[in-house]
Structures are given as structure tokens and as C-alpha cells.
């Protein structure tokens, strides 16, 4: 990630009309936007379109960025809001259930999982979680955001963010333990 000083220089250059600077900005934050969108939006076709729209929005709104937060937090907020709006518009997802009432699909027979599939397995479980849980897990683990930064992006109270993280992790642990635990015991 860029330092505050570098961010300011980059933003000023984009606002000054530099195409090169905006390409730099996209290079730096593409990973963040891709992760947010890929975790929140299920439809493959919508993902790339949404990533494009996020950067168009970033470009059009950059003049209103006041450096009161990190640029990554601001861009993540745009990506989060646009993903949520896109999901609302398409309404392809069923109404969100509570984490405890979800029947998680494991996608394989017990004992039939290779070690290299664990990451995919966890991602599939995360993908079945309600939107808010997926968001906080993505921002916290994948992007390394702090609690205050997640609060800024999602607008949830800090206690709720911590609670979601705690519950999501416990749920994943409970489901994945028979598989991952076995590997750990074998070590």
C-alpha cells in the first residue's frame, strides 16, 4: 500500500489529468477491488463489470476525496457499496439467513478432500455466509484492515464487526475441524 504522501501525490496527478497516474492507482488497488467483488458477488459475469464500475466511480469521485481516511479504505467503501447495490438490483440471492440457521453445503464426501483443496473448501463456506460476515472476513483477513477501517467501510459498529468475525471464525472452525483437524493431528 502507498504512504499518505504518495497517495496525495497520486491523487493530485489523477486530478491533474494524468492517465498514467490513474493506471498506477488501478494497479495498486486492483487486488483490493477484485477481492471485495469476488467475495461479495457470486455471478462471474457481473464481477468484471462491477470492478470496472468501481474504478469509474473512483475516478469520478476522486475530487471529493478529502484524505480523511486511507485511499484503500475509501476505495473499499466504494467497492462494498456498489457490490451491495448490485446484489440488491439483481436480487438473485435469496433473503439473507442468520449464520446459525444456514445449512452449509460441503461440496464433497467426508474424507474425500485433498490438502490443497482446503483453501477452496473454506472459500466455499465463506461464500455461503451472509453478506456482512463475508465482508468483514474479507477485509480483516484478506486485506488486513483494522477494526476502525472496517467500521468506516461497512458503517457497522465496532462491536458488531468483532462479533461477526468471532462468530464466522467459530462457525468455520466447527465445520472444517473434522477435515483440517485431521491433518493437524497427523502432523
Amino acid at each position, binding site marked *: 500500500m502507498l504512504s499518505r504522501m504518495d497517495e496525495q501525490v497520486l491523487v493530485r496527478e*489523477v*486530478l*491533474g*489529468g*494524468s*492517465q498514467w497516474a*490513474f*493506471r498506477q492507482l*488501478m494497479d495498486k488497488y*486492483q*487486488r483490493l477491488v*477484485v*477481492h471485495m*467483488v*469476488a*467475495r461479495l458477488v457470486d455471478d*462471474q459475469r457481473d*464481477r*468484471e463489470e462491477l*470492478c*470496472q*464500475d468501481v*474504478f*469509474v466511480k473512483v*475516478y*469520478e469521485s476522486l*475530487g471529493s476525496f478529502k484524505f480523511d481516511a486511507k485511499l484503500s479504505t475509501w476505495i473499499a467503501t466504494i467497492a462494498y457499496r456498489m457490490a451491495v447495490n448490485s446484489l440488491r438490483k439483481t436480487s438473485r440471492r435469496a433473503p439473507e439467513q442468520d449464520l446459525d440457521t444456514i445449512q452449509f453445503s460441503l461440496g464433497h464426501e467426508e474424507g474425500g478432500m485433498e490438502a490443497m483443496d*482446503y*483453501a*477452496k473448501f*473454506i*472459500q466455499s463456506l*465463506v461464500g455461503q455466509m451472509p453478506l456482512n460476515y463475508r465482508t468483514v*472476513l474479507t477485509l480483516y*483477513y*484478506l486485506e488486513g484492515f483494522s477494526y476502525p477501517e472496517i467500521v468506516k467501510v461497512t458503517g457497522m459498529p465496532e462491536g458488531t464487526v468483532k462479533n461477526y468475525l468471532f462468530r464466522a*471464525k467459530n462457525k*468455520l*472452525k466447527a465445520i*472444517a*475441524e473434522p477435515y*483440517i*483437524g485431521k*491433518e*493437524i*493431528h497427523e*502432523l
Partner: protein
Amino acid sequence: MSRTEDQMDKKLEELLRTPPEFNLSEGFQDRVFRKIAQREAVSTRAYSWVYALAIAIFLIAAVICLVLFSNTGSLTGLLEIGSWGAMIGVLVVIFQLLDNRLVRKKSHLI
């Protein structure tokens, strides 16, 4: 926390840090630039229509006033009012142009 539980936590966190398998296709950035250019073209067209409409309304109003007051002695006063109106109109156009160029700063990028 037991050692196994601790290892389980670490493993889970490691797996949660694995990025989802999704990559943007080649030419992604170029498509973003194209989209920005398209949106700017639409917005410029909309501005042009508003300007054209405003000028048309102004001219029609001026013609109606000229027709209505041409036979009365107040034509000189009317022309004076008209010149003030034209000056305000020109200032509004200048303000809009400056706003587009200095505040929005969009047009140079593409």
C-alpha cells in the same frame, strides 16, 4: 487454548488469507478508460442540450419582447435590460466552463 486448537486457528487464518480465484481479463484498464470516456461524452451532450435550450428560450423571449414593445417608447429601456441579461448569461457560461475545466478536471484524462 490447547496446542491443537491453536494450530487449528492458525491453519484457518492461513486459509482465510488465501485470495479467491478470480482474475480480471486482459485489457481491463483500457475498458475502464473507455467507460469513463463514454460517460463523459454523454454528460457533455447533456450539457450541450441544456445550453442550446437556454439560448433558444432566451432568443424567443427577446423576440417576443421586441414584438410586444416595438411600438412603445420603452424599447430603449428594454434593450438596456436585455444587455444586462446577456451579460449575466455570458457570466453563467464562463462559470460553467471554469467549473468543468478546473473543478471536475475530467476532460484531459482520455
